């Protein structure tokens, strides 16, 4: 029998209906089903969740933090995307 190390999984928990799943950490497990079972024991011992997602860590693709400035720069220069950019005359409500 090979001494294969269990793969790494990222764990996402939905804490209650209506909220999105949120990354909580990672763990090792032989397959997805066991990863969900382990996540139940490791990350929800105090009713922290009603739903669990697991994704094998190797399948996560991330942006490069070193490129963050240029990647997010376009949003920084477009202040007109925010409502506070606009002048609204005094006395106008419901806007």
């Amino acid at each position, binding site marked *: *029998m*090979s*001494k*294969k*190390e*269990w793969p*790494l999984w990222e764990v996402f928990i939905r804490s209650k209906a209506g909220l999105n799943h949120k990354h909580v*950490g*990672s*763990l*090792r*497990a*032989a*397959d997805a*089903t*066991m990863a969900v079972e382990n996540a139940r*024991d*490791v990350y929800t*011992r*105090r009713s922290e969740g009603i739903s669990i997602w697991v994704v094998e860590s190797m399948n996560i693709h*991330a942006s*490069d*933090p*070193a*490129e963050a400035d240029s990647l997010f720069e376009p949003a920084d220069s477009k202040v007109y995307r925010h409502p506070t950019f606009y002048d609204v005359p005094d006395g106008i409500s419901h806007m």
Partner: protein
Amino acid sequence: MKELNLNELERRFQEKIDKDIKIEPNDWMPENYRQTLIRQISQHAHSEIVGMLPEGNWITRAPNLRRKAVLLAKVQDEAGHGLYLYSATETLGADREETIDDLHSGKAKYSSIFNYPTLTWADMGAIGWLVDGAAIMNQVPLCRCSYGPYARAMVRVCKEESFHQRQGFEIMTTLANGTPEQKAMAQDALNRFWWPALMMFGPNDADSKHTEQSMRWKIKRHSNDELRQQFVDVTVPQAEMIGLTVPDKDLKFNEQTGHYEYGEINWDEFWEVVKGNGPCNKDRIDVRRKAKEDGEWVREAANAFAEKRARKKSA
């Protein structure tokens, strides 16, 4: 990315730290920062895992079902804490198996407190109250540590550990209010665990070689002696409240400073235990090694089962 020289990268890194911007796994970090964190977080993980042993020793002998259920939950939490922390070391590029092998070979350290034996039920009280109390004092500032995954793990750990300390203090209170024999048992446990608990904060500031750099990197927020003082200040009145005596003849409250002054810690004993010559060092590591060896077939079976399930799914 523009080519930056090392000095410039380090300058920018320190600038982020100074502005309290967290460092995340893929961010550039100095090699020393990475290694310091791997060492500290893995030692912390090992302490959680080895820390299950002195208490595991008493699960089958807990005095009633309530105490047994509580102790079982506490030990399970410690396993969980070890797992959060091993995961955090993996985000730094450490290999989990190698990390665990370093513990088993004696290369990696863990908290010296777990090398003391748990001789009576009162020791479960003393450990929860003093050892978890000291651990919480150490861990609360780590929730603001500059490394994101470590800080987040600590937030979870601290939330869970507040019950650990309370259940220990409850055991001590019950015994201290019990028969003379029970009270004597509680006092004996306090006598044996008081000084090792003070040692948990590590060497005096003057002898702590990593403190200065760790504080500059905001891995550490308070020095060993500051945290130790804080622990003494909050714990001594708790002992008095339940009628137990802290085993330190030099202990006295200083009205001027508002702090307790305490006696000299036996640092020779501390270093002996750190070097592996404590009462239970060998036993703890032997048990860990055996657990890993005995669990080998389970890990293999899980792999075999995963393969079988995958084959069925694709068929």
